């Protein structure tokens, strides 16, 4: 069984997913950080594939992506690094990135390789639903990879139902209409949106992301969903002076403490 599906079978509350950018702060940090995140309390590891023009990301992930590329990170390099992760990481692994690097690698070759190195799902924010269904769904399924879709406060109920019906694993609930790391904290207005989604009784679990940065916001978001995703705040923690994996471990521990 796909490890993401397995995860939500076993755990329905307070699921913690943590994102970081592959190849940042140093090229060879990827595995150490992923392992530190997985071994210190995160339920799901989300690894960012850096892209030169990340339009859905705020300054923190723009910066980590740029530096990762300057360090020499690429799709090929990342998949190579992940080869070593198969034994060390129990938690499901999701790759998040923009469509173009995947297209250039070749979608089929990418899925085949990703699946063989233990990747369980993909989040490609600029791959539209219709395009996925007509061009890529069969390939993803052939290699047992789940495609994770986003919904936002502006997504219509009808579209949410449509996304729910073709999704597997979980739905990525973007907490506000914003780029990543743009806001912190959760407003009353956002809570109303979370409640609205809760009442829809979707067949898929939901994880709330964007604006979740610490134990308090993680707890708050988790009240309305199956858990939450933290990204920019983790990047900020690991880019401090010192060992990135040690920072990552401490960051995750503080969230689940």
């Amino acid at each position, binding site marked *: 069984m796909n490890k993401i599906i397995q995860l939500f079978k076993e755990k329905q509350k307070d699921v913690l997913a943590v994102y970081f950018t592959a190849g940042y702060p140093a090229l060879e940090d990827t595995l150490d950080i992923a392992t530190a995140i997985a071994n210190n309390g995160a339920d799901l590891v989300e690894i960012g594939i850096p892209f030169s*023009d990340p339009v859905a990301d705020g300054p923190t992930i723009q910066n980590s992506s740029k530096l990762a590329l300057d360090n020499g990170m690429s799709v090929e390099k990342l998949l190579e690094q992940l080869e070593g992760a198969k034994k060390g990481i129990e938690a499901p692994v999701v790759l998040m990135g923009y469509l173009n690097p995947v297209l250039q690698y070749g979608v089929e070759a990418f899925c085949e390789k990703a699946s063989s190195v233990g990747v369980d799902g993909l989040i490609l924010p600029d791959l539209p639903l219709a395009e996925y269904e007509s061009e890529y769904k069969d390939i993803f399924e052939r290699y047992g990879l789940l495609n994770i879709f986003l919904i936002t406060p*502006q997504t219509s109920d009808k579209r949410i139902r449509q996304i729910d019906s073709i999704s597997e694993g979980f739905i990525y609930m973007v907490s506000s209409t914003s780029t990543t790391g743009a806001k912190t904290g959760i407003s009353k207005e956002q809570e109303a949106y979370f409640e609205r989604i809760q009442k829809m009784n979707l067949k898929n679990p939901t994880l709330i992301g964007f604006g979740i940065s610490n134990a308090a916001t993680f707890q708050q978001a988790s009240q309305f969903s199956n858990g939450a995703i933290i990204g920019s705040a983790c990047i900020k923690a690991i880019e401090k002076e010192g060992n990135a994996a040690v920072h990552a471990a401490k960051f995750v521990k503080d969230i689940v403490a």
Partner: protein
Amino acid sequence: MQFEVDENGYFGQFGGAFIPEMLHPNIQELQDQYLAIIGSDQFKKDFDHLLKDYVGRPSPLYFANRLSQQYGTQIYLKREDLNHTGAHKINNTIGQILLAKALGKDKIIAETGAGQHGVATATVCALAGVECIVYMGEIDIARQKPNVERMKLLGATVVPATSGSKTLKDATNEAMRHWINHPDAHYIIGSTVGPHPYPDMVAKFQSVISAEMRLQLKEKTGNTNPDAIIACVGGGSNAMGAFYHYLDAEEVRLIAVEAGGHGVASGATAATTQIGKSGVLHGSKTLFMQTKDGQVVEPYSISAGLDYPGIGPSHAHLFETKRAEYISINDEEALQAGVELCRLEGIIPAIESAHALAALSTIKFKREAVVVVNLSGRGDKDLETYITKAVY
């Protein structure tokens, strides 16, 4: 051959709407409504009225006598440089501000390279009394100072894009990010790029260029069709406007001129069709310059308006089907052609448009051939570049 956009927003294999979910409601709204809005009687009436009385259209089609003698052919200049604000960009911004109003939007975002689109957007925002934010690369702000001041004078807020190459590509990224964070705004894209329906919508607004050319050529030469049309291509809006009504007239040669920069093989170029590959950038599948790993390669051109790593999807389709020819002109050649037009015709062209003029030196036309060069903009904004870089 099919050159119109299909129901899914594609031109052949290029186009589509590859956007993050956050932008889906806005793009869906545009896709659902743009044709009905721009096809309505009220819109057409307002658009035509503003193009005539505000922009000063039709722009003249001028027979360039001395230039024609120089090249031994019949050269006409479509004078988009004479439009209000100095370039073709205003045709699109007039259309989009009317569309934004019809959609009930009172905040406008735009990106700009040379600043021509930024000025054209700031202008229509002043006209409509709406808020205007223009993203512009930090490097472009430095090399196009007069346009920055014009935008500010017109009441717009100019925000420097400091990421990446700090030019048009990054200004576009920043404008898209701003739109994600402010979905109540309308984003006026300045070229035939971006997610569907922008490439088609912008082409339709710019198509007034070739609609007028047909009537003007008929009057001056007795034939609606020229032998060739030459236009420069960054994202591709002036070229698409100049080609639009001739796409199905296969006897008309369509020549698109890309910015070669220091040379196609130099590593400092914006000649997309020469070294680009198909991929997804800024919301559509199109041709752009990228590494093997799919990272966007920073473009280079002396002309800020052509300094973009890709071309719009409709151009990618014209290139692939060979309906249009794509050539590249280097910085030096463009500067020379710009100076030549100053001396032969008393017209200072934008350095973007000078790329199109330079094609006259590389392609030999018959003496009786009618060749239209789309003079997309005037060179006032480029005086400093001419003064410091051109030899005259």
